[in-house]
């Protein structure tokens, strides 16, 4: 694995990171819409969609993290732009995993209050992911 060019892993990371990003923002959108809809089957449909999108985001985030670590030659911190990227990426990864676990474990429908807290944390996570995405783009393509 070490022998594989880090160029390959950089390209793999570029491809892999877009999945958790898209799934996470999709989950946030569907969950937020579901939250504000009146109690109905439509609300339930939005929340189920959000539920699965978040799980997909959680699963795909491991691929993004793995390829990113391989690309940076297993550096979890680094310097300069890489450090900046990691300062966004690691909290984002922890929050995604945490939120995914929470949604998997809460089998029955969560209370409205708990769901509101969940949405707030999800918004916070989206901000970290956006920061990680921006700093990652700057790291590779920044002028």
């Amino acid at each position, binding site marked *: 694995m070490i022998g594989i060019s880090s160029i390959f892993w950089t390209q793999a990371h570029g491809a892999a990171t877009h999945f958790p990003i898209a799934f996470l923002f999709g989950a946030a959108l569907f969950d937020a819409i579901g939250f504000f809809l009146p109690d109905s089957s439509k609300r339930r449909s939005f929340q189920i969609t959000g539920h699965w999108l978040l799980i997909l985001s959680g699963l795909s985030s491991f691929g993004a993290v793995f390829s990113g670590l391989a690309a940076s030659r297993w550096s979890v911190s680094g310097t300069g732009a890489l450090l900046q990227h990691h300062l966004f990426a690691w909290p984002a990864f922890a929050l995604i995993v945490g939120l995914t676990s929470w949604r998997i474990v809460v089998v029955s429908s969560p*209370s409205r209050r708990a769901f509101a807290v969940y949405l707030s944390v999800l918004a916070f996570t989206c901000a970290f992911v956006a920061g990680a995405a921006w700093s990652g783009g700057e*790291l590779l393509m920044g002028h």
Partner: protein
Amino acid sequence: MNTLNEGRACAVAFLTSCVSLLTIAGVAFVFTNGLSGKQSRVPESREVDVEVAGRGRQIFVKHCAECHGYEARGDEGSDLHKLRAGDALIRQVITGGIKGAMPAYGKVLNDSDVRALTSYLRTLGD
């Protein structure tokens, strides 16, 4: 019932996050330190050897100045004074290029040349 579930779920979520981060850190540690006997790590020193940087400047003029400008202020290529990447990434971009934007110099420059060039780029301020 919901409250109980939610409380447990929060605990599980927190633990899973911690375990995931620790696992990732552990994997990174194993790959960086555990394999140190097989692969030496390149120090990311910020100290610049003037002689090496001078050679890097010569390499820059020969291979890079045409696009990046002789003062590395950017022309067809980007302004390298505003470079904010680590040494490893700089070396990676030099050797592998950027698809559609910059050719790869991995077959043109040897490892010593790439390090000298990186060293020179480190001397460029804002």
